[in-house]
Each structure stands twice: as structure tokens, then as C-alpha cells.
């Protein structure tokens, strides 16, 4: 292993851990909140089973507004809210707040798109069998859209990694922050390159896992 990596081993391990925490929390937020929000966005569309113009318009606008922010500005903009929620706006835990919010907005849009790919006829068949809205969601929509949902989460996760790299501005740490502070600002270009390689490997790994799972569960 190159000397520089051994020299900064502890910091690098710490940075990787911070990235994992931030990205992991984003994934949890995406699944727990983004999935229901995306499903609601879909179901409230015109002609769908929960058609509701008000709910759709409000959610749609909210998702668009959050996604319009340059992420760095969103982080800064959310500082008061973050402080209210976790008591501080600095550190890895505080970094989770803006990350979770962008994660929800990002994934909910991809969920909505995946659900749009489910043939209308399948939903009609479900309705004709007397399926409730819950049954339509869990026994038809999610079953039929599952590979799209996994691919969407893969794409989202890779974006979350990218978003997490700028969390250095609020002391969130992570690989990106380490690369800038130790690599770029201290003129250790080699250290920066190694960090970029770690990121590339991480993204590759996630993409491969996502693709493999999506292909395995797709029987269409």
C-alpha cells in the first residue's frame, strides 16, 4: 500500500465511515419516506385510484422546489431547520438532515416514474378483482415495478454519495471532504486521486449490485 495511505489510515477509515453513515441514512430516508411519497404522487395523478389534484400539486411542487436548489444552497438554507431538529447544524448527524430531505425528493420522483411503467391494465385487473388501494399498492404495483424501484434506488444512492461529498461545509466529513482538505488543500494530489479511486470503486460496486438484483427479480 502507498505510504500516504498508511500515514492517513485512521483519517481515511473515519472518512469512509462518515460517508457510509450519511449515505446509509439517505437510503433509509429514501425508502421510508421517499417510497410512500412517490407512491402518493403516482396514485394522486389524474385518472389514478386516489386522484387528488390538491395533494398531487402540493407534493409535486415540493419535490420540484427541493430538487431545484443547488445542493450546497439547500444545506445552508436548511441550517436553522437542522438546528431545530438535532440541536446543532455541524457534524455528521446534522449533515443527515439535508441529505435525507434531498434523498426523499430524489427517490420519490424515481418511484413515481417506475410506477408509471406498470401497465394500466394490470391495475384494472386488480380493481376488477376487488382489490383495495393497499392491495393494489403492495400486491400489484410494487410487485410489477420492483426492478424499476431497485434501479431507481441504485441511481439515487449514487447521487447520495455525490451529495455527501460536499457535506464538509457543515463539518459532515466523509471521503469527499477528506479528499478536499487533505488532498487538494494540502497539495497532496496523489491522496486526492486515491480518494477519487475509492469513490469510483464504490459507485461501480453499487451499480453492479443494483443491476444484478434488478435483473434477478425481473420476470417480465
Amino acid at each position: 500500500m502507498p505510504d500516504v495511505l498508511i500515514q492517513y489510515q485512521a483519517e481515511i477509515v473515519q472518512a469512509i465511515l462518515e460517508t457510509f453513515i450519511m449515505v446509509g441514512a439517505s437510503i433509509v430516508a429514501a425508502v421510508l419516506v421517499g417510497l410512500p411519497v412517490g407512491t402518493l404522487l403516482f396514485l394522486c395523478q389524474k385518472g389514478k385510484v386516489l386522484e387528488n389534484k390538491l395533494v398531487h400539486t402540493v407534493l409535486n411542487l415540493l419535490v420540484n422546489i427541493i430538487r431545484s436548489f443547488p445542493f450546497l444552497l439547500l444545506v445552508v438554507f436548511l441550517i436553522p431547520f437542522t438546528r431545530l431538529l438535532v440541536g446543532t447544524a455541524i457534524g455528521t448527524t446534522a449533515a443527515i438532515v439535508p441529505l435525507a430531505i434531498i434523498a426523499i425528493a430524489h427517490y420519490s420522483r424515481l418511484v413515481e416514474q417506475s410506477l408509471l411503467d406498470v401497465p394500466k391494465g394490470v391495475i384494472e385487473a386488480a380493481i376488477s378483482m376487488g382489490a383495495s388501494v393497499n392491495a393494489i399498492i403492495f400486491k400489484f404495483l410494487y410487485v410489477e415495478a420492483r426492478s424499476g424501484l431497485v434501479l431507481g434506488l441504485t441511481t439515487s444512492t449514487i447521487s447520495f454519495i455525490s451529495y455527501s461529498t460536499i457535506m464538509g461545509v457543515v463539518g459532515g466529513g466523509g471521503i469527499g471532504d477528506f479528499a478536499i482538505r487533505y488532498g487538494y488543500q494540502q497539495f497532496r494530489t496523489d491522496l486526492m486521486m486515491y480518494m477519487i479511486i475509492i469513490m469510483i470503486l464504490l459507485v461501480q460496486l453499487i451499480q453492479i449490485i443494483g443491476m444484478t438484483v434488478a435483473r434477478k427479480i425481473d420476470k417480465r
Partner: protein
Amino acid sequence: MIQLKTVSKKFNNEMAIQDVSLTIQKGDIYGLIGPSGAGKSTLLRMMNLLERPTTGDVFIEGKSLTNLSNAKLREARKSIGMIFQQFNLVANKSVYKNIEIALELANFPKSERKARVEECLKFVGLEAMQHKYPAQLSGGQKQRVAIARAIANNPTILLCDEPTSSLDPSTTNEILSVLQSINQTFGVTIIIVSHEMDVIKSICTRVSVLSEGQLYETVDIMPLGIHTIEAHPQSFVDALRMGGE
């Protein structure tokens, strides 16, 4: 018995169905025929309220469907099976699971589901296919699975929306004979929408002709020919009559 009473349906200011009334007797194989855009699918879809009439009402066994609460309507739909031109199977569920889901939704006792699924598969001649996925089946096989799914919960009515329109002629005949045997074996009332004269002629006992959202004529198809109940000059009926002689 299914009764439509002066039902109309408006889509964006266009009348898809205009004041149609008709009665379908228990045990009939009833055909709805007409050129495309005549509103026959819309009319069929009113019978389980997939399409809610703008005005008028739908009665099943004398009970209005349009006044039911959501929960009651779901209950009512469990005894009205439906099959579609595009089959509408769940592509990510195996053949077995596609049929089981109908039983699950109907709260069919869990311990009896397996036997019932196998019974239905046997009825449509696909017992060997239960572990396959829809993508591995031919069109005719997919429609058989859809039929098995539709009859799993012992419905009294089976709605068929262009059930053979994406199938070749010999598969069409196979599917029609499956439908006929469902009608004869279980006494299920069947309503078939089709634009194909041959389909209607070969199995229907009574036919209504639709054109531009209106009912033109209803005829009985007897073994010895066609008996007109309410006559209107209409090319579809002429074609039916010619074929019958």
C-alpha cells in the same frame, strides 16, 4: 341478472354511451358487438363499475352498483370475473401466484387455496405450467391463466373484453370453447365484447349491436338462425344474418 338502465357516459364532453338500457339473463352468453369506437368496451366496463356511468344505473341481481360504498363495491366485484384483450397478468408473479392472488383478495380460506388454484389450472388445461411466468407463455396460454384467475373465486358473472382479439384463429376457438364450458359447467353468465363476427356467432346466445354509443338492435342467435327482437337497419346485423343462413 344484469340490468343497465338508461346509462350514459361522457368523456370530455363527448358521449361515449347514450341512454343504453339492456337486460342480460342469468346463464346467457351475451355478445356486445359493433365497430370500434361504438362504446362496447365502455358498456362492459360499467358492469363492474370500472367505468362509472355519468347518468343511469347498473343493477346486478336487482341491486344497484352505483350506490354501493367502496367496501361493498369491492365485495361485489369479487363475484364478477373479468378478462381482457391484453390478459393483464402480473408479469412478476408465477402462473400459480397470479391465480392465488384472486383468492387472497377474496379472503378464500388459506388452507384451500392450493387445491382451488390447481383445480382452476386443470380446468383451463395448464396444470403443468403453474411455476412458469407469463413471459414464458403463448398468448392463448396467458388468456387461459387470466380465465383461471377470473373464475377462481366462483363468480356468477364473467366479463370478457375482446378476449380473443390478440389471438390467432385456432387459439381463438380454443379460448371460446373454454368460455362455453365455463358457462355450461358452472352456469356463469358471460358477456363478451368483440368486433369479430365469428366470435359472437360461434358462442353467443344473444347479441346487442352498438353503434356510436347507442344500442341499435338485440338479436337472439338460435341454432336454426337469427331471430330479430328489435330491428334496425344496420350492417353488422345484416352480416350476422347472412352468416347465419
